[in-house]
């Protein structure tokens, strides 16, 4: 296992990325099974959610256990704008991102000084508030328990995206953009500022980093990206309901980040495969396994924390940098 991982890491990155993208492009041609392609679409949406939470949990080290709320804000913003006002899905996407970011700033500003478990509890509370708000529907726009149905499909230059395969490429496009953006952020002044805060907040502040601003930005950006995932989700299923955005799904997102290796982009994909794709795979093999899902997750989590606390594919930027430096000089 270790040898394989090291081999993969040592390959020239560009060849590796090229091969991965080519492989991803060819999957629908090879698989030709709508069920599995749909599963991969879901995988992509969850990968985006994982990457968005990774900004907050992985880079900035802030515990956020209510991330599904921002996913919900994005999905409902799109649904409401599209159903009631007929705003095209792709126009809704940036609006969803902005609305989610707005809510993130609104709720995180007063709790930013909280640390660790305290922050965690407040975010759980917020997640539940959003879900219950959607459920009880005080303004009669969210559809209550039944949610909203009849959300349109996105269309690009008049071409409607409505088959699983079309959705596969649509989601793949956003996944790739997200990866690119995250990679750039990791190696930027802002990304480093988040890492400094994660490592030692007081020292970061003493070194001249506006920690309040940086943390707000992490929350806002993570939420915005989850809002985009919400937009994609809403148009993919055309129906959304409050139960999708439950606390359990916030936990799944958190597990995706921690399982794969906090702060690591490939780790998020490993985590998503483990949390989303694997249960799907098991279901086709043995349907009764679904009843055991929670137990299996629980055991897997405990085992992870004991045997591999750094995650399955931890962040390795430092060694890579070192190696690049050696070969270039």
């Amino acid at each position, binding site marked *: 296992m270790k040898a394989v991982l090291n081999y993969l890491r040592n390959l020239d990155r560009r060849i590796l990325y090229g091969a991965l993208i080519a492989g991803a492009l060819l999957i629908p041609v090879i698989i030709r099974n709508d069920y599995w392609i749909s599963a991969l679409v879901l995988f992509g949406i969850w990968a985006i959610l994982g990457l968005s939470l990774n900004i907050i949990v992985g880079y900035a080290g802030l515990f956020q256990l209510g991330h599904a709320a921002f996913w919900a804000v994005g999905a409902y913003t799109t649904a409401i704008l599209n159903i009631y006002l007929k705003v095209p899905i792709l126009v809704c996407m940036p609006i969803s991102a902005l609305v989610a970011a707005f809510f993130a700033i609104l709720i995180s500003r007063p709790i930013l000084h909280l640390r660790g478990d305290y922050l965690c509890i407040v975010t759980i509370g917020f997640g539940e508030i959003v879900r219950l708000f959607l459920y009880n529907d005080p303004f009669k726009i969210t559809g209550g328990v039944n949610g909203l149905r009849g959300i349109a499909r996105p269309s690009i230059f008049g071409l409607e995206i409505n088959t699983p395969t079309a959705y596969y490429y649509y989601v793949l496009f956003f996944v790739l953009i997200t990866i690119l953006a995250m990679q750039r952020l990791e190696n*930027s002044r*802002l990304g480093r500022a988040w890492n400094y805060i994660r490592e030692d907040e007081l020292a970061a502040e003493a070194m001249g980093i506006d920690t309040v601003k940086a943390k707000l930005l992490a929350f806002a950006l993570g939420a915005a990206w989850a809002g985009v995932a919400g937009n994609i989700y809403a148009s993919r299923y055309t129906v959304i309901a409050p139960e999708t955005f439950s606390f359990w799904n916030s936990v799944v997102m958190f597990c995706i980040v921690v399982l794969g290796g906090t702060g690591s982009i490939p780790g998020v994909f490993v985590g998503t495969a483990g949390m989303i794709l694997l249960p799907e795979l098991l279901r086709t093999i043995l349907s009764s396994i679904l009843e055991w899902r929670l137990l299996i997750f629980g055991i897997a989590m405990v085992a992870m924390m004991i045997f591999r606390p750094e995650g399955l594919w931890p962040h390795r930027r430092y060694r890579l940098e070192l190696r690049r430096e050696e070969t270039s000089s």
Partner: protein
Amino acid sequence: MALLEVRNLTKSFGGLVAVNDVSFHVDEGEILSMIGPNGAGKTTIFNLITGVLPPDKGEIRFNGRNLVGLRPHQITELGIARTFQTIRLFPNLTVLENVMAGLHCRTKAGLWSSLFQTRVQQEEEKFIREKALEYVRFMGLEGLEFELAKNLPYGLQKRLEIARALATNPRILMLDEPAAGLNEQETSELMETITKLRDQGITIFLIEHDMKVVMGISERIIVLDNGYKIAEGTPEEIQNNPRVIEAYLGKEE
């Protein structure tokens, strides 16, 4: 003119008055030491100046500007850098990344320029890297750029902390017990470094227990005891001050 001026500074924690009506000043270009027994309030004064703690009373002026009420990062940006008594590096980041932290407040790339990797942002990244490397070399850490900070031996971690503070391009460098835990050779290297920094125009304000360091490099010394300033003067004056001797050795019966 005094670069840093502290007037009637008072801070208490519950019933304990940690700093009691302390006034002093730091002149531009000097090396000033603050000494005193444990619990005298030295680190509290550092924390008050750098904005980590708010004072109960008193005034702190840097270059004529009032620092009270500013947040730590704003004070650093104005030109006051510090190290910590117990090392506070970013343990899981590399030596280079640690030093790059200091350059954060001297650069300005934001979210969008990072996402689109504009030319200005790319040039700034290069600048940050090169500047950081300069400080790494200055503190004798070359060859260790990509080591994780937590893997460095104690003496090098102390140097890295100074390198990181220097990267903020400070006018005053505040060192909290820089010689603590260093061996004799490391201590004399530290003294050389401090003198060199002063010669480059950086004002040094340090807390130190090692009397060899304090008496060897300081131009002036402030002595604190139980939150009060009990003496101020040149090394000779302090060494012969009966109140200082009493604070350190106790009263003769």
